[in-house]
């Protein structure tokens, strides 16, 4: 009794120690290095960087190691670190037309200027478990053969969407030069700008966006999408330095960019045009980028006078539930003690039940009394009849 709520300090310290032991695992095996995670768990690192909103493969790998591979926990670790970082400005818009592409595909044209480059993808691996990976590399006869270097498209490669735009077949992107809102600095207000929506989706949970994007394909806000273009590779990040009066290149980051081409809209006055949805993620987070583009398009319902009827079109619903750091925290806060609320509920439910029991009891008593009275009256009546009969006899 009462001990259950005491000793919190000791319990937490012991729990932290135990966690550290569990994380390390079997000490007969060599400890996993952050460099290994970074090099060999590349897609996990990319997801953690994307949803953690920090481009730093080393810290993302560290977070994955620390979180025992729980990516949502790793994302949280990175986010909590991120808030402590000073912010000295915003970079110039990424020029993805100049991307050093390692992969580039379009589902809309058989061939496009710059070509189709498959790059490394799981798409055609046939998903057979490769049991040879069970053995260590030496037993298998060394590292895999170096990939043959495909002729990567170099320099400026125009987007597929710009080819459609030349013919006026796809909407021209609305260019808004005003300073975009920053969702990490101010609470969002609805309706939100597209810039704010894209910020939210970019750091949104992959699973959540995947499910929502999927729902649009199954008829909930249907808008037939074509993968106009998926391109992945390195892009330069530049920053305009006031002191120098010039833009300087800070370095290069890996991104995956997706442009969907969606069913056309239009009216009697406006000629039909294709519309688009946009997705961008760090590294090779391709599934995430495609799902993001589907949801971005669904959220643009108002722009195309589409009825908002499906969950994926409901801006406040999507944006306020997409963040897995928020969602995971609140869902898991149910583990915290709620003795007090529960005690209040117990008190209330017992009182309500007692009141109802008392009422039923009273009603039953009244019924019983009425029944007895009726029976008595009946027997009295029978008695009287009997006496009359006797008298007559």
């Amino acid at each position, binding site marked *: *009794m009462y001990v259950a709520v005491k000793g919190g*300090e000791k319990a*937490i310290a012991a729990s932290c120690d135990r966690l550290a032991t569990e994380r390390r695992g079997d000490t007969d095996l060599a400890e996993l290095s952050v460099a290994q995670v970074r090099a060999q768990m590349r897609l996990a690192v990319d997801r953690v960087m994307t949803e953690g909103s920090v481009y730093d493969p080393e810290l993302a790998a560290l977070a994955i190691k620390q979180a025992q591979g729980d990516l949502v926990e790793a994302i949280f670790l990175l986010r909590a670190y991120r*808030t402590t970082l000073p912010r000295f400005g915003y970079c110039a818009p990424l020029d993805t037309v100049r991307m050093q592409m390692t992969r580039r595909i379009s589902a809309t044209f058989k061939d496009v200027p710059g070509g189709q480059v498959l790059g490394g993808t799981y798409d055609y691996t046939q998903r057979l478990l490769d049991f040879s990976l069970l053995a260590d590399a030496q037993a298998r006869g060394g590292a895999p053969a170096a990939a043959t270097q495909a002729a990567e498209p170099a320099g400026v490669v125009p987007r597929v969407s710009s080819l459609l735009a030349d013919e006026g077949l796809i909407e021209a992107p609305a260019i808004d030069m005003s300073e975009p809102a920053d969702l990490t600095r101010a609470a969002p207000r609805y309706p939100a700008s597209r810039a704010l929506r894209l910020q939210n989706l970019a750091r949104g949970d992959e699973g959540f966006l995947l499910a929502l994007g999927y729902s649009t394909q199954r008829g909930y806000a249907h808008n037939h999408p074509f993968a106009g273009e998926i391109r992945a590779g390195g892009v330069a990040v530049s920053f305009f330095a006031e002191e120098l009066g010039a833009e300087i290149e800070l370095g290069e980051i890996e991104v995956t960019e997706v442009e969907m081409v969606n069913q056309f809209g239009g009216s009697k006055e406006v000629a039909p045009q294709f519309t688009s949805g946009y997705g961008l993620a760090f590294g090779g987070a391709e599934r995430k980028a495609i799902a993001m583009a589907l949801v971005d398009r669904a959220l643009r319902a108002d722009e195309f006078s589409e009825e908002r009827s499906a969950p994926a079109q409901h801006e*406040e619903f999507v944006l306020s539930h997409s963040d897995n750091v928020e969602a995971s925290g*609140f869902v898991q806060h149910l583990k915290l003690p709620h003795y007090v609320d529960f005690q209040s509920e117990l008190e209330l439910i017992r009182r309500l039940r007692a009141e109802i029991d008392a009422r039923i009891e009273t009603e039953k008593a009244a019924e019983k009394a009425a029944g007895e009275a009726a029976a008595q009256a009946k027997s009295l009546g029978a008695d009287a009849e009997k006496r009359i009969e006797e008298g007559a006899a």
Partner: protein
Amino acid sequence: MSAVFDSPVQSTGPLAGYNFAYLDEATKRMIRRAILKAVALPGHQVPFGSREMPLPFGWGTGGIQVTASIIGADDTLKVIDQGSDETTNAVNIRGFFHKVTAVATTTDTTRASIVQTRHRVPETPLTEKQILVFQVPQPEPLYRLEPNRAEARKLHAMGDYGLMQVKLYEDITRFGDIAHSYDYPVLVNGRYLMSPSPIPKFDNPKLNRSRALMLFGAGREKRIYAVPPFTEVKSLDFDDYPFGIEKWPQHCALCGARDSFLDEVIIDDAGTREYVCSDSDYCHQRRDLNESAADDSEGGVV
């Protein structure tokens, strides 16, 4: 790891590499602005640029950000969860602040200048020298009735709280009573409907004309609101169904209190119940008092 939770009162200086109280000064200023606005508009939810904290959303990040932005080196902090200083979450948050501020911490309600709480208001009345910081999971009192926050904002702007009145009325027709036992809606200063956070309705009367400033932080929902000292806080009710608080036929098994909120504890396999104060400090103080009273009376006999 255990160093984090070492002797809470011992002061060794704040954590190297981090600003005092974790948040940078610009962020603290932004939060203090939101607090000032909230104090000027009692019960009104003020949006703020809530930050990710090293503790999870839903575990007190709103209260932590409020405390971090008002705490100074001279403050004495008390942290409670479910009324107790000893629950793991309270211990963890107290440990966090001790680590990043090195301020003195206490479990004694009367000695604290700031009390951060989840789900309770201390039994010991607070004074005008104290600030009570609430951790709020859901700042919008209308959220069960109108989940769309943009719509709910309009209802607040118009002071249109018919939805809530109808909900309470329906409770009475269905259950014979208002079926809210915690997070019981209140009207602040006759203007804004407010969630008092999930405190039991037992604590609602303590909010009315409180001497202490009360600040409410909702980190995940990015809202701050406040009840300034001596402000009217009215629990919604009807003339023929007046507001009432929880009552127990039992008294605290440890200190004998009849006036405090009691937690029910199941103490054996046969389901035997015992009731003890939810406010651990209040219970300790009363037990100390009882003991010294007992000592005194013994002394009297001799």
